[in-house]
């Protein structure tokens, strides 16, 4: 009978239960420590991923601008030159033959092609931006809008507006020109306003028009808006669309990168 004597709870099961408890406690505490570090690691990984994406975006935009520059140069130097030569030869032919009736249409066609080439070149890469900067380019844009006689544009900026890096000036110009394009195409606006404000650390560009405003569908699916947001992100800035009364209002804030 002694052989079947019960196992004493205090001497057998209690130590075992205590050991189990210690193991469970250890696992829980270590797991908590691990979760904290894992969260930090995940944050770091997200940060690296974001940086990588921004770098990719910046290089994609830089490559796009380079390609635009190349196409604009090729169009201007090759196609433009050939069209100019053709124009000259037709003029010479007209003088020589003393007959303008047969070649007049041809000359007009070439003149139109030359004007189109210049316009495309300008749109691809505005010549003022590199030479005269953002303000001159936006003034030229304003003049173009005003020449349509459908919408009147105003542009205000600080008198001592400095030059910025080419990437930044070109980026802001492209964003504003896309906004202007949207206003002219969809907003049916009578007025649009471009304002440049300079703080100690940021360039703020505010844009507004008195058109129909932004519809929810356009906000969600617009490729133009996406591309603008991408450009602002590439410049490490913020793009905010605000709802102030009627029309469309937005502001772009880009960290300052002044060229000395």
């Amino acid at each position, binding site marked *: 009978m*002694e*052989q079947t*004597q019960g196992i*004493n709870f205090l*001497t*057998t099961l209690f*130590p*075992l239960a205590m*050991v189990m408890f*210690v*193991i469970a406690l*250890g*696992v829980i505490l*270590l*797991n908590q*420590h*691990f979760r904290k*570090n*894992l969260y930090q*690691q*995940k944050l770091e*990984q997200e940060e690296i991923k974001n940086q990588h994406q921004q770098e990719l975006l910046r290089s994609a935009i830089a490559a796009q601008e380079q390609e635009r520059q190349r196409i604009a140069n090729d169009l201007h130097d090759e196609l433009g030159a050939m069209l100019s030569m053709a124009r000259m030869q037709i003029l010479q032919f007209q003088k020589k033959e003393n007959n303008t009736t047969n070649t007049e249409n041809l000359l007009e066609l070439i003149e139109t092609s030359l004007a189109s080439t210049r316009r495309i070149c300008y749109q691809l890469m505005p010549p003022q931006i590199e030479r005269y900067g953002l303000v001159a380019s936006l003034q030229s844009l304003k003049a173009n809008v005003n020449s349509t006689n459908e919408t009147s544009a105003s542009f205000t900026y600080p008198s001592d507006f400095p030059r910025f890096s080419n990437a930044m000036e070109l980026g802001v110009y492209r964003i504003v020109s896309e906004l202007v394009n949207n206003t002219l195409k969809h907003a049916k606006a009578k007025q649009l306003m471009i304002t440049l404000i300079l703080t100690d650390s940021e360039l703020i560009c505010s844009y507004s028009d008195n058109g129909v405003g932004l519809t929810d569908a356009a906000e969600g699916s617009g490729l133009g808006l996406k591309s603008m947001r991408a450009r602002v992100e590439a410049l490490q800035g913020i793009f905010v669309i605000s709802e102030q009364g009627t029309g469309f209002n937005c502001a772009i804030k880009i960290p300052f990168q002044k060229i000395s």
Partner: protein
Amino acid sequence: MKLDNWILFASTFVVLFTALYAALIYKRLTKDLRFFLWFVFLSGIIQLISLILWFSSTNNMPLLHFYVAVGFIFLALFYGDILQGFIKRKLILGIIILFSLFTIINSSFIQSIFTYNSYALTVECILIIILSISTYMFSLEDLVQEKRQGLWKSIKWINAGLLIYYTSSLIIFNFAHLFFSDQSFKIYSRDFNLQTWMLHSFFSTVMYICFFIGLWNRPKA
């Protein structure tokens, strides 16, 4: 040969074989497993010496005291390496220092080096079980697997081996301590003692087989 002898023979052979294999692949192995390999080498050496001492009828318990302390240091450093970035190195070093102090105090004042160091072994088992269960849980996270890409197949086998062995040891030690100390269990004979150690040897064999599979599944260059 009886089954008991087979198990004893297998448990010795498998330790030496794994240690030999570890030595052969030492230079080709990633740095994350270096402390684990040192643990395997230590086990091989201790096994060999204890066998010699056993044949010469000398008490080999001092070896066990040394093996528990140093073996745990290597295993804790191994876990520290594979969980780097997720578990702070300081925490692992803190555990190592505290455990080392405990084993020194235990061997000096509580359990003589010529007796069985059940307290240190129990604490070692608890710590290794905590580390191995936690490692298993952490390995379910994609980010942890990404950090040690290619190595997790090996780590899973090694970790499984450690968990199986140390869990079984903890139970065996707990009951062995009870059976040998409690007079009410005097019915248990020398045979029972031997059976307990057979069981221990069996789980030890399983652990080293897991180690061997883990090393075999190492990331190939």
